[in-house]
């Protein structure tokens, strides 16, 4: 037989969005179970050993690992039930979750569900792309910052978004050599300051280039890079071969929306948000009543915004359940929205803001159609 449990709020995914959502709902008085398939909570947060941007209210200047510790402390203080090593394999009608906990099956009946399942890294296919030593940039980050092993010694980074730039820096800190960051677009995708750090360390950032092929016998031994034109075609005669034992791919993230699909949530394809993303009403409620979304699942962004979205979701849930009065909830919602707005300003932020707004617009369209 399997265990069948009841709870008020089930939060799936204990990364920054899930942790924040659970804390917010629990603080208001709801009974919250926070579920994560990993042995340790925190999602990608405990790999972010750099200091965060933003303002004091966002934890600026504090390293991601320490923000993570604060959040964990708050889950304890608010008596959030954290269930680790629990993979949610199904999300059924009437908000029933199917779980597998090590080798035991469980089902949980929840009143409200918050999905904060995050994203997975994209692969890029080029000849040789399956060779050992070619891995996601996040995988390299996990190895060095969590498991304290080098994934390799001579590394080529593909992609100059913030993930590629930051992980390159962290690889240097861990003692690896980063031969170059290669970027297919003509401009660097991430923040200038992240690129400047690694340039000072002698790492070239080669724009308008991509990997033509990787070679090696049982692992990658060399990578050939080549220039690309404005139509992303390889330019013949521009090939350069680098001796590497590792290639890190930082070519974007895709939301893990499987449970959202299963629950019947409407998803819309937005490449600027990472792929198929569940739409929501601006208060983080999806097209399925009682199912909420937050964090990178609701569009790829960053940890700071994930935390604020998590809080919005937790607040909405608590308000729906009567734990927070309407005017109190509005006040709190405004506070969180202000902080979120501040993070989505400037040329980088504005694009993300526009993209995230599309989800709410799609939700409104659906509503108007009914």
């Amino acid at each position: 037989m399997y265990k069948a449990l009841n709870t008020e709020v089930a939060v799936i995914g204990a990364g920054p969005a899930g942790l924040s959502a659970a804390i917010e709902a629990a603080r208001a008085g709801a009974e919250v179970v926070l579920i994560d398939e990993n042995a340790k909570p925190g999602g990608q947060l405990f790999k972010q050993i750099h200091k965060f941007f933003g303002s004091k209210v966002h934890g600026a200047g504090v390293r991601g690992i320490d923000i993570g510790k604060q959040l964990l402390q708050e889950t304890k203080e608010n008596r959030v039930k954290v269930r680790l090593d629990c993979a949610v394999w199904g999300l059924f009608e009437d908000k029933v979750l199917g779980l597998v906990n090590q080798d035991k099956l469980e089902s949980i009946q929840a009143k409200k569900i918050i999905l904060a399942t995050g994203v997975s890294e994209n692969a890029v296919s080029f000849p040789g792309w399956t060779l050992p030593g070619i891995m996601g940039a996040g995988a390299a980050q996990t190895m060095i910052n969590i498991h304290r092993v080098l994934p390799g010694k001579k590394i080529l980074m593909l992609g100059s978004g913030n993930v590629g730039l930051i992980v390159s820096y962290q690889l240097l800190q861990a003692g690896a050599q980063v031969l170059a960051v290669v970027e297919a677009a003509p401009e660097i995708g991430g923040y200038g300051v992240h690129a400047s750090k690694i340039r000072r360390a002698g790492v070239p950032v080669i724009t308008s280039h991509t990997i033509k092929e990787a070679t090696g016998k049982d692992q990658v031994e060399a990578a050939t890079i080549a220039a690309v034109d404005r139509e992303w075609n390889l330019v013949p005669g521009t090939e350069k071969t680098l001796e590497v034992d590792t290639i890190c791919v930082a070519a974007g993230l895709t939301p893990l929306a499987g449970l959202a699909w299963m629950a019947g949530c409407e998803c819309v394809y937005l490449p600027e948000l990472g792929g198929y993303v569940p739409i929501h009403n601006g208060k983080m409620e999806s097209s399925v009543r009682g199912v909420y979304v937050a964090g990178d699942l609701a569009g790829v962004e960053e940890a700071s915004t994930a935390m604020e979205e998590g809080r919005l979701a937790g607040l909405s849930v608590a308000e729906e359940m009567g734990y927070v009065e309407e005017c109190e909830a509005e006040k709190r919602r405004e506070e969180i929205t202000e902080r979120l707005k501040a993070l989505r300003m400037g040329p980088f932020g504005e694009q993300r803001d526009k993209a995230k707004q599309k989800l709410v617009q799609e939700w409104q369209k659906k509503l108007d159609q009914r």
Partner: protein
Amino acid sequence: MAKEIRSAIVLTGVPSIEELKNSPGFPSEERLKKGPVAVIECIQEIPCDPCEPACPSGAIKVGKPITNLPVLCEDKCVGCGKCIAFCPGLAIFLVDTTFSKTKALIKFPYEYLPLPRVNSWADAVDREGNIVTKARVVKVETSDKYDRTAVVSIAIPKRFAHKVRGIVSG
């Protein structure tokens, strides 16, 4: 991608001297001649402002919105270097062109191991990581408040004061 800013930093990751001199965080030549002063090399509008509360003299202003580029009030800046460790982008330096008759002092954030040893020699690099001169390590500051960002001071020939922003690590 920041489409509006088509400049050196977006194309290469290295800000050009023009971009820097045109930014509000860069001190004037006049001020640089007077003594140690902060040099804030932050030229993109990113929501970020911990440099403002980091300065004990109130010489750095970001205000609202927090995407404003930090403004260095060079007359208020006493060149203490306390701001250096607090910039999450590691984009603040200190330059003292009056360190000695022939040398300038450069202070920069450093997050690698091993930490350089005081009085040792190091290879000083420019913003592109090119070695431009030899440097004498004058000071290595760590503190709990700096949260594992060390602040390293090096003495270099004066003529490299606008170029040198670090050392070869390891």
